[in-house]
């Protein structure tokens, strides 16, 4: 019979990790990563949540732990100063920072209880005073601002707007579908092969108009090789490829 385990609710993966560290009474600076990873994984296996957002956050940490575990098995990386880097260092910093804020949140809670005991009073202004709006001193308000400064501000606003447009991605919309047709290319190369019998691959490529034509030509040649319509030979690496027709 399964023993129903009441799982504590954690604020997130860091909270869970801190709990495990606390429970195992281990030094946060020297986390036995294998043990903690095992416990962490067994905990999230028991987690009963349909919320993929919540679950994914816990899974990201699981992946991080496994990654650290692997790195611990490998020879230690050495940084520029020749020091060995502890794969756990980043996680430790995160845990410490989180722990600090968590601690402060308890402090704040205490303070709130105390502060909640004071009471305030609503304003008791006569309505004609409450509704009063003092006149605006425009000279003071505008100060040394003038039209050309306002113009500079406008220009900088427009510039900021332009900066926000990603010049590369904003052009993606203009990409046109390439009109290179695979079937047509096959017909063309087969005809070319029949005419030439034995020819240079480079010479064939030079007849291609665009990068897409080159790529498709290359694909067609590969395909024809596979189906033994042609054979190829190359003397040396990076040499021209000589194509011979088998048709």
């Amino acid at each position, binding site marked *: 019979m399964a023993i129903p385990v009441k799982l504590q609710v954690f604020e997130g993966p860091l909270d869970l990790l801190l709990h495990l560290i606390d429970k195992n009474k281990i030094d946060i600076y020297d986390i036995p990563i294998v043990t903690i990873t095992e416990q962490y994984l067994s905990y999230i296996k028991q987690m009963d949540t349909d919320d993929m957002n919540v679950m994914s956050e816990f899974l990201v940490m699981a992946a991080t732990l496994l990654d650290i575990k692997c790195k611990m098995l490998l020879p230690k990386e050495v940084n520029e100063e020749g020091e060995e880097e502890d794969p756990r260092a980043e996680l430790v910093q995160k845990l410490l920072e989180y722990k600090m804020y968590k601690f402060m949140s308890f402090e704040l809670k205490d303070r709130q209880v105390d502060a909640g005991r004071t009471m305030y009073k609503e304003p008791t202004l006569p309505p004609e005073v409450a509704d009063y709006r003092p006149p605006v001193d425009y000279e003071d308000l505008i100060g040394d601002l003038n039209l050309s400064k306002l113009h500079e501000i406008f220009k900088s606003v427009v510039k900021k*707007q332009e900066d926000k447009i990603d010049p590369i991605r904003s052009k993606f919309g203009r990409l046109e579908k390439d009109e290179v047709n695979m079937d047509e290319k096959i017909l063309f190369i087969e005809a070319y092969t029949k005419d030439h019998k034995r020819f240079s691959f480079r010479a064939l490529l030079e007849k291609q108009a665009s990068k897409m034509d080159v790529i498709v030509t290359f694909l067609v040649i590969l395909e024809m090789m596979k189906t033994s319509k042609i054979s190829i030979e190359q003397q040396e690496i990076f040499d021209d490829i000589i194509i011979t027709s088998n048709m």
Partner: protein
Amino acid sequence: MERAKKEAIIEAVLFTMGESVDISKLAEVIEEDTKEAKIIIEEMMQKYQEENRGISIIELDGAYQMCTKGEMYEYLIKVAKSPRKYVLTDTVLETLSIIAYKQPVTRLEIEKIRGVSCDHAVNRLVELDLIKELGRLDAPGRPLLFGTTEQFLRSFGVRSLEDLPSLNPEQIEDFKEQAEEEIQMKLDV
């Protein structure tokens, strides 16, 4: 309960309630009968009469209320009416510049240019009488159109809207090119 504490409680209760509080209620809180409570309050009222106090307790038909002393009125008005320091924040200034150069313009257009909501800034500018509603755009939702006011012209020493320096299309092209160059540089690195 000590006498000092009773006085403190009465003061706190009258302050918090703001309105008049019946003597029976006050008596109950300080755990006294109304007669004794009355004596305490009367004495407190005496103390409040001292020169350095700005508030006092008044009796209203068996109830008590805390209020400011009459002679404080002129100072209270002064605070409430004290000229507020108006300042134009960057957000407000940016919004104003867009309205000045693009008027008549809707909130939506301003937001498109700034990339953030402008409600607060627009309201502030209307309040300061630097911009005003010019009517509504004949488009879905009939959005309000804004433009600058006479006060704006006066404050900026502009005789008419035609005096506003214009931002020409070439300038916008320049900005575009600059943005592209910056990106290119980043890619090259």
